[in-house]
């Protein structure tokens, strides 16, 4: 197990967001967390990334208790995340954003008088990630001016530039057109193989993506793990399909909505 949550409970006042969640992620796995709105997915991600302290229970990353260690220390340990709502640096170019991630990974942020342009290792590593995510041609574009899909991609790419051992993606394809979703996922999986990322965890609403890419699916409902199984088993479980996924719409995909 790289990442493990044991009996995690989280209360917001009287409201119970997570009620005894246990899960584990193994080497080489792609795990998706699904569930209806309010199932506790975001809380779970925040607990798994050490951003929220669980009311009880423990989260262990590489055999280390990580509750409350904060994002900076967690990054150093080898976990990276992207956000549901796009997080970018509006005034930085694509390549500068990736360079910042590489500088962070190499621990060179306090080099006050060194030349960034002259740092070959940073330059090359950032360019490599840009190419990997198909952003090479746009590397000098300021992030604010990128189309929505590319902003999302840049957010994810900067997390990959940290070369994490595990990466948590909070809705990596939200706000992206259906046509772009698959492209993003393909890029993402290829990139994780390339950098040697040991596991991916994603929260995702698009069931085509979830069933198409996951090794294992964890279904959350009312703060509890309803099911934790490979995609085929989840699909076969009527109870899970009814409560979490919902019945298929009358016409599944003739005209998909513009923004998923």
């Amino acid at each position, binding site marked *: 197990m790289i990442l493990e949550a044991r009996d995690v409970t989280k209360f917001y006042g009287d409201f119970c967001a997570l009620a005894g969640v246990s899960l584990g992620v193994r080497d080489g796995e792609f795990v998706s967390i699904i569930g209806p709105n309010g199932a506790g997915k975001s809380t779970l991600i925040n607990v798994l990334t050490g951003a929220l302290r669980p009311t009880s229970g423990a989260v262990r990353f590489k055999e280390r208790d990580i509750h409350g260690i*904060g*994002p*900076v220390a967690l*990054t*150093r340990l080898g976990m*990276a*995340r*992207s*956000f549901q709502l796009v*997080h*970018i*640096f*509006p*005034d*930085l*170019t694509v390549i*500068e*954003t990736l*360079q*910042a*991630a590489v*500088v*962070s*990974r190499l621990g*060179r*942020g*306090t*080099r*006050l*008088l*060194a*030349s*960034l*342009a002259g*740092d070959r290792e*940073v330059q090359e590593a950032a360019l490599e990630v840009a190419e990997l995510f198909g952003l090479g041609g746009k590397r*000098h*574009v*300021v992030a604010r*001016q990128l189309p929505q899909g590319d902003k999302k991609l840049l*957010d994810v790419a*900067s*997390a990959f530039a*940290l070369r994490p051992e595990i990466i948590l993606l909070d809705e990596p394809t939200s706000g992206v057109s259906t046509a772009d979703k698959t492209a993003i996922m393909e890029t993402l999986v290829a990139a994780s193989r390339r950098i040697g990322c040991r596991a991916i965890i994603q929260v995702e609403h698009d069931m085509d993506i979830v069933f198409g890419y996951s090794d294992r699916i964890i279904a959350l409902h009312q703060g509890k793990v309803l099911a934790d199984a490979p995609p085929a088993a989840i699909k076969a479980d009527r109870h899970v399909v009814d409560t979490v996924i919902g019945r298929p719409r009358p016409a599944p995909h003739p005209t998909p909505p513009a923004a998923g």
Partner: protein
Amino acid sequence: MTGRVILALVTLAVLVLPLVAPAYYVLLMLPFMAYAVVLLGLNLLFGYAGLVSFGHALFIGIGAYTGAVLTTHTSVRSLEVILLAAAGLGAAAAMLVGALCVRYVKIYFGMLTLAFGMVFYTFLLKFYHWTGGDEGMRVLRPRLLGFALDAMPKVEYLAGPYYYYSLGVLAVATVVMWRIVHSPFGLCLRTVRDNPAKAEALGLGVTRYRWHAFVISGVYAAVGGALLGPPTGNVDPTLAYWTQSGNIVFMTLLGGFASFFGPVLGAFAFIFLQDTVMSVVPYWRLIFGAILAFIVIVAPGGLMGLFARGRPREVAAR
């Protein structure tokens, strides 16, 4: 390319200025160069880290009084020693004040820096025995690079050796700051300004970067402050008053905080504009208030922004 040509021309102009210009204007360049050093530092905090300090007169005051105390109470006369001492004391004060301030942002950060500035101002004003109170202290003429120039007439000393010495300090300060903003540290600072939460997610400790920027800007302000004393031969608490902090923020806005040289241009414009306006009308603050309002509403990029207009924003934002 045009940037390099302009820089070369400006360098040439300031080098020959004392040989061709009336002494009055040469002397006016002295406070400009001192403030330019201050502003290079202030803009690391303002333009690159996104924090507006209303208390940097504190560090100007520390620098200026360092020169006064050393020349009047000790046998130290060397300007190099004075500048180093000012830098050290500025750094020490900025480490302390910064540690308390950088946990806050926006108006809270601004108010906290203002508060510390007021404390120091009051100290200068009330501890008469040490600081001379509102009359301030004398600054004896410092030695430059080991040369005692006491026999030289004052104007000759200031418009000659002291001018070139200040220019040298400004040049070094500029080169160092240029390197800082183009270093990995400079990049990280801009991530912290743009999106602190994302910066943290990338493993960049936000408060640590802000603190570093604060300390560097404190050192610059103290060095600039130390250069302000010798031309007038006197320092007084108004150097550390909050209107002084306001003035340097104004200079930054006037020149344009989005560009590296903007604040330097702002200092230049401020000093010469103030001189011109004061000689025409007594109400120079009235005119300056109107200019400030105009900049904020019409030209938020400052003078540099006006020059850079028409170029794509990502270039102007550098």
